[in-house]
């Protein structure tokens, strides 16, 4: 997807303007409005239910960003991303619960933030480990190895071994008050929301800047044609592994963030379904676009919630509908993916791009 055109009659006069993120006054105003909404309006007016939906959206965005990077920008199809989220979540949990933190760090509330960073690195390295086959195989075969990553990590290592640490059996419980960031104890939806919004903005900003640098251009070249990319002097293996590392890194942050919203963590939070869900999110939002990741996350979470609300009144007549809602959710998700792939393969981001251009170029859209 190419960039948006400037509105009629506006021109750039320096290279700095050409490279700036918010190129016109209108966009600046729009973005400031967005920030005001995110930081002021939503926390002030949303109730706990609304905030929890926002948190879910934020978690989906963080998780899907890594998938977007791998599939949309580097062309490495992955169907096992939940494994890296799980690695991040478990690393962070174990560090917070079991690591002998110096009293100073605990006092200043730094244990959890440090564990997030550590979790991100561990998940990144884990991701590179399973990205290694990408040096030799691609396409369908790579899909299979990433699926193997999911089964080996979540269904085997985490379920059978990591869950046994401390003799708890299945789940690690996170007692209230364990998760602290600086002076704040993360114990309400509102605090989780603020943490989520900061992390999402950071991740999006870093990834967007990375994508317009040398690294990002190398990734896009590999996506478009890896043989040509190699001929042009790009170290294909290095950049593919780097893509896996960054994707795992963001995934680790997502997983480590999500434990602040959970009372207990178990392998069931990261099923294969969740990997596929993340891929579905970017397909519906639009492949190869960060906007798409965000739109897709909002769309999927909101549609599922709306579906649940729509079913509630029917539940009196057909109680089976509510009981089996999980299955309806799965079925709807499947149909939504099929419908988008068949009728709108460019995703929601493409429509957004068209709309923006329509207004920018009006009245002479040719």
């Amino acid at each position, binding site marked *: 997807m190419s960039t948006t055109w400037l509105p009629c009659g506006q021109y750039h006069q320096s290279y700095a303007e050409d490279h700036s993120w918010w190129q016109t006054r209108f966009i600046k105003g729009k973005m400031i409005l967005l920030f005001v909404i995110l930081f002021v309006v939503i926390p002030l007016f949303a109730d706990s239910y609304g905030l929890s939906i926002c948190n879910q959206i934020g978690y989906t965005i963080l998780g899907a960003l890594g998938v977007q990077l791998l599939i949309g920008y580097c062309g490495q199809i992955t169907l096992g991303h939940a494994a890296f989220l799980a690695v991040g979540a478990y690393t962070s949990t174990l560090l917070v619960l079991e690591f002998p933190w110096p009293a100073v760090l605990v006092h200043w509330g730094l244990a959890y933030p440090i564990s997030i960073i550590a979790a991100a690195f561990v998940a990144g390295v884990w991701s590179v480990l399973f990205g290694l086959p990408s040096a030799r195989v691609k396409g369908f*075969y790579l899909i299979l190895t990433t*699926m193997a990553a999911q089964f080996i990590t979540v269904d085997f290592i985490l379920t*059978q071994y990591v869950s046994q640490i401390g003799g708890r059996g299945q789940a690690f419980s996170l007692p209230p008050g364990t998760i602290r960031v600086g002076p704040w104890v993360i114990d309400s939806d509102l605090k989780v929301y603020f943490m989520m919004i900061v992390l999402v903005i950071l991740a999006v900003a870093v990834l967007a800047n990375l994508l317009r640098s040398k690294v990002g251009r190398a990734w896009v070249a590999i996506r478009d044609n890896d043989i040509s990319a190699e001929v042009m002097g790009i170290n294909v293996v290095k950049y593919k592994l780097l893509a896996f590392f960054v994707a795992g890194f963001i995934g680790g942050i997502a997983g480590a963030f999500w434990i602040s919203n959970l009372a207990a963590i178990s392998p069931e939070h990261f099923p294969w379904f969740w990997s596929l869900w993340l891929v579905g999110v970017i397909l519906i939002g639009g492949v190869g676009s960060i906007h798409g990741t965000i739109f897709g996350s909002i769309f999927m979470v909101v549609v599922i919630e709306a579906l649940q609300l729509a079913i509630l009144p029917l539940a009196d007549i057909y109680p089976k509908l509510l009981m089996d809602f999980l*299955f309806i959710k799965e079925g709807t*998700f499947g*149909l939504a993916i099929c419908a988008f*792939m068949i009728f709108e393969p460019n995703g929601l981001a493409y429509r957004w791009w068209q709309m923006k251009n329509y207004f920018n170029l009006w009245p002479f859209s040719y």
Partner: protein
Amino acid sequence: MDLFLETLTTGVMVGGIYALVALGWVLIYKCSGVLNLAMGEMTLIGAYVCLSFYSMGIPFLLALLFSLIIGFILGVLTERIFLDRLIGEPVLTVIMVTVGLSFFFKGCVEFIWGTDTRVFKPPVFALEPIHLGPLVIGRVYLWSFVAAIVLLVIFVSFFKYTRWGLAMQATADDEMAALSLGVSARFVYAIAWAIAFMAAGVGGTLLGNINGLNISVGYLGLLVLPAVVLGGLNSVPGAIVGGIIIGILQNLCGAYLDRFFPGGVKQIAPFVFMAVFLLFKPYGLWGWERIERV
């Protein structure tokens, strides 16, 4: 030694079922180039339909026949509604549509039949095992293996000797040439999906007879992937050999490695094996090596 022999035979017998489902997978891939991740849910649908008919009191073979007919119809419908519009789209699109299909099917199956384990009542096969020399084999395994082999032979002779089968072979070999000789590619795709659906249904029914039928039988559809990768994606004999090898490997790992790595070794082993195998021989035993040009 007894344990080894018994594990080996069980492996071969279960592998026969895997081979049957893998054959369906390879068929779709060969004819239409679709990498199908919905195979597991297709086995589920076939198995549950057969179970429903059987619970109504219809004899097993007749119930199987009915489920084959329904599988045929569903296969053609799936191809017509979903896959037909995607000819020539990128790999990811097609794969994700099959993933979407798998969720759709799974949701339907869970909604209609629930998630409790169901068994074929009364049991289709007698419970007492058969003694073959030193070996003791459960009747279910033996009959499943026989059924799988018979169906494999029927399918293979269908490709070799019938008009439809030859048309499918021609399309798989060279679509352009087949089209110019008057073979309808769309017809061939539809038939390929129908046959895959039927093969998957039989595989699911047989597996359901062994351990009872629940949603985890759909895991078989994922096991098919290591099998076809091992044999080569577009090789029919490869699928059969791959299926049997995966069956043996799975049972041997279950018998010998379980004491070192307690838990799910049996489920994980095929995937670990596949990931390692891909590093050394990405095109499988008999798959075509694709030469890429810019």
